[in-house]
């Protein structure tokens, strides 16, 4: 067998062994892990991604590609990606789900303000980028500086 194939088979076997550890732990510690709820959670997570998150991203992506002017397209895409990530990560804090009246050391900050500041900086950076592209576009230069010469045409799937 080729060394690459040996490694791949080894990785596959090791992966199955790790599955076994997960299942064994979930069963042995079923009082804590609650296997039914545990499985439901990660299966639901995958389904929610495929049925909700991915289609919404497709739709938003399509809207941007279709309606946002060429010059600011990339900065808008970047701003939306950054916004989605920052909102997703800060969502529990923003909504204050974990806030306990008796313990003010949980979620001690004003997360709405924090989010506004973060997104303000993100969109300011994207705005500056868009402005740069706008100026370059007016001067008839490419929208961005490429470090390597680009071959055009062959194999490109541009519309």
């Amino acid at each position, binding site marked *: 067998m080729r060394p690459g194939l040996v490694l791949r088979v080894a990785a596959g076997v090791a992966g199955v062994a790790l599955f076994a550890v997960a299942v064994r732990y979930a069963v042995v510690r079923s009082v804590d892990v609650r296997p039914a709820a545990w499985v439901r959670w990660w299966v639901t997570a995958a389904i929610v991604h495929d049925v909700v998150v991915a289609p919404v991203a497709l739709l938003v*992506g399509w809207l941007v590609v279709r309606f946002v002017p*060429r010059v600011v397209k990339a900065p808008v895409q970047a701003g939306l990606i950054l916004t989605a990530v*920052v909102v997703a990560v800060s969502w529990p804090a923003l909504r204050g789900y974990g806030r306990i009246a008796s313990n003010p050391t949980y979620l001690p900050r004003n997360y709405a303000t924090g989010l506004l500041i973060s997104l303000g900086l993100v969109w300011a950076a994207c705005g500056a980028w868009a402005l740069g592209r706008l100026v370059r576009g007016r001067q008839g230069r490419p929208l961005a500086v490429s470090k390597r010469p680009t071959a055009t045409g062959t194999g490109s799937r541009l519309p």
Partner: protein
Amino acid sequence: MASRLRWPEPPPTIRRWLPQPDGPITPPASTSRLHDDRLAARLGIALAVTFTICFLTGLWSHLQQDPPTWLAIPARPAGLYRITQGLHVITGLASVPLLLAKLWTVWPRFVQWPAFGTLPQALWRIALLPLVGGSLFLLATGTANIAGWYPWTFDFRKAHFAASWLTMGGLLVHVAAVAGISATALRRKLKNDSADDLDDSPDGRLSRRGFLGVVGAAAGVVTVTTAGATVGPLRGLSVLATRDPGVGPQGIPVNRTAADAGTREVDLDAFRLRVEGKVANPLVLTYAELLAMATRTATLPITCVEGWSASAAWRGVPLRDLLRRAGAEPDAEVVVVSLEQRGAYRTSEVGRDHALDPETLLATHLNGDTLDPDHGFPLRLIAPNRPGVLQTKWVTMIEVR
């Protein structure tokens, strides 16, 4: 694989919208240049690195809380757990944009038809649910946990632990299945796709390189806005951190308050610290006696499993002095018991290395002042390199077994 499975043929109208396993990743349904094997491979490598860091640091944390008999947890370096657990949470949060980007790049493959044709494709398909579901589970539950939010019925630590094995198993099977396609994609010459790969994109959309840059920037923004919970210099910038290491009674955060533990009012006249069990000379000490013995000061971090940490000067009685006075065997098993009546962390086991460490204290003072009730007044355990949940508060007994 030579032999191929026969799959039913979908109607031509649907057929033309579905990508094929052996064809380019881009289906007719999507013109995104970001649905690309090479990009997927690069993001996959980044995720393999961050997930491995999370897995190892998580395993380390788990072993401290459920120590197996074969592993002696060292007491030194004192800040080790602070680093490993800080890294665990920081790396996990930074993985959120990486995972979402990765899912976007490969999404058409999820709906490819036939679902699989060769053995590697079948393996890839089987590993997908535990890998994707497990990854999303880990990042979602972790993000909720650091915000103190528990919208589930399972025990967070143990379910998170089980999911980490599931995910890493999925990752290994996935790597076995896609190693070939990834290696080919990574070796691919740029010339055929340069307009898509490089940052000069004639149609104005993000190039692949631009997309990687944005994903990296997203990881950076997430890190800067949250890592201040454990990285001191970032405190002022971490406007989205769920904890602030400077906010709390005596300037230190708290996980379980005295009110929650039912230890708000401790009658000092009645309070005693007992050292009992397998000892030659059981001790019963009053608070005044403990204060007289509390001469050792140690600067140690308190590190929560939720990733925040803060350093403080603790003053107290070295545990090893008490054990010596009581005549405990040096290799005895030591359990610290709290005044709390309930709670998963009412007691904690102190390993041998920690029990012998001169800076493992039963502290009475924090930064020069008497402990706040929320920090465990009248007496708490504080030891180097130890998860915060095991730094038992409101200590009333040391049981030697």
